């Protein structure tokens, strides 16, 4: 029954993943608004249904039923293509993230990962930077100076921060000896490497903040300078897609960080009850997202020159030093 393994199983897994991610995105917006509210001594949305659980549904309905407006001065094909190109890579990143250990379903041994690619980390880097295309095409097609400036900022920011991120990933690769995320989670590492990896977490998290365009590095959409950056000319469901892509990037980045630094789906009793794996992963992702929101509540947005200066004169050299120390340690130990 090859076709079951080749088509049906991945198809079902992809479907479940997409549905879970899109629901997760909707409730992530609520989570962020509520947590941010508590950081600012208010309740956050709590009117629609209990604890405000109806707000994401109301938001989605509102977005869907908005009028489709395509401004007259835009490049129509690219304008429509922009949001799609933004959201597809955001979803595609999850293909290589191991959700849990293999479980037994209806007599099949199903590994809880969509695709165990042996170049998983490379795939993540490649797909994550594809997301830039959605942003820059949308900004370009909008034919609006604010959109274009936002898109340019976004792309140069992502290019700059991808460098330290890549170097840190290489360091982790040196320690784990494999690019496959599944293997990285499963294989045991000596404790000194574990500690050393976690020591790189603040650096890596900073690059992740810049890659996902989150505060304090949300330069692509500085409201006070650029209206809404590359999203300025977008409305209705197309705006919702950009918004979705942004939050999916956040979930994806959290998943990658958790997988690389905090042991992915590992946790107590996973060996006895494999279904706990996805639960642990989800909990860890929620903690990471809490960290994202905490950073947003704590730090003001940096200026654009500060952003690039910080990357090139601090993050980049420090990550190079980290890589050098790691390389020496791997050879010696």
């Amino acid at each position, binding site marked *: 029954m090859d076709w079951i393994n080749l088509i049906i199983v991945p198809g079902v897994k992809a479907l479940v993943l997409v549905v879970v991610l899109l629901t997760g995105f909707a409730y992530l917006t609520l989570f962020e608004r509520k947590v941010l509210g508590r950081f*600012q*001594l208010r309740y956050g949305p709590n009117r629609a249904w209990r604890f405000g659980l109806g707000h994401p549904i109301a938001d989605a309905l509102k977005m869907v039923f908005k009028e489709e407006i395509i401004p007259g001065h835009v490049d129509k094909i690219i304008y429509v293509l922009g949001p799609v190109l933004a959201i597809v890579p955001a979803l595609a990143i999850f293909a290589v993230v191991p959700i849990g250990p293999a479980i037994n379903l209806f007599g099949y041994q199903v590994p809880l990962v969509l695709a165990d690619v042996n170049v998983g980390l490379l795939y993540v880097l490649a797909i994550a930077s594809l997301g830039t295309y959605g942003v820059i095409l949308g900004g370009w097609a909008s034919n609006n100076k604010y959109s274009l400036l936002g898109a340019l900022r976004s792309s140069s920011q992502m290019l700059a921060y991808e460098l330290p991120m890549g170097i840190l990933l290489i360091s982790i690769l040196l320690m784990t000896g494999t690019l496959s995320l599944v293997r990285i989670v499963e294989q045991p590492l000596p404790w000194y490497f574990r500690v050393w990896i976690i020591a790189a977490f603040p650096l890596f998290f900073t690059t992740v903040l810049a890659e996902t365009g989150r505060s304090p590095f949300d330069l692509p959409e500085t409201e006070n300078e650029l209206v809404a950056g590359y999203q300025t000319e977008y409305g209705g469901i197309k705006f919702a897609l950009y918004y979705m892509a942004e939050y999916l990037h956040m979930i994806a980045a959290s998943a990658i960080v958790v997988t690389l630094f905090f042991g992915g789906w590992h946790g107590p009793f996973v060996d006895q009850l494999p279904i706990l794996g996805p639960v642990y992963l989800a909990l860890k992702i929620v903690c990471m997202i809490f960290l994202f929101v905490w950073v947003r509540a704590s*730090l003001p947005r940096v200026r654009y020159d500060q952003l690039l200066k910080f990357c090139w004169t601090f993050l980049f050299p420090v990550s190079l030093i980290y890589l050098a120390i790691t390389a020496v340690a791997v050879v010696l130990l």
Partner: protein
Amino acid sequence: MSRVGGVLRGIDWIARSFIVTLKAFVTPPVTVQYPEQPIAVYPRFRARHELRRYENGLERCIGCCLCEAACPTGAIHVEAAENDPERPVSPGERYASVYEVNLMRCVFCGDCETACPVEAVVLGHEFELAVYHRDGFLLTKEELLKPTHPNVIVRAE
């Protein structure tokens, strides 16, 4: 070495800002859930007018029209009439047969309160004044005499 010092200082400041926000996170919100929770007002808070009665049920207002004279915007309109000695409406010779307050003109200055010799008209705590029609802003005597139950708690001065 000053570079390292700068980095350490930056980390210190970032850590401090994180602690500040974390403290805010564990503090209960200061928001008042308004329609469900009452709002705290000061005792001398001035909202809608009320006409008061004596404990025996007689109206305090004696129809002297001083409030009408004192009103800077002309929001109050009073018409006085002679009391029937058999069934008096108020303890004095006269009472107000018509007492209207136009809330669209009222500026809630409280001059009517000050002018009133018998403390009949007071500005109470009833502040939820929205109505669906303009006519609703013209308060008649019956509405002003009705006891109000404002959605407030009175705080210490």
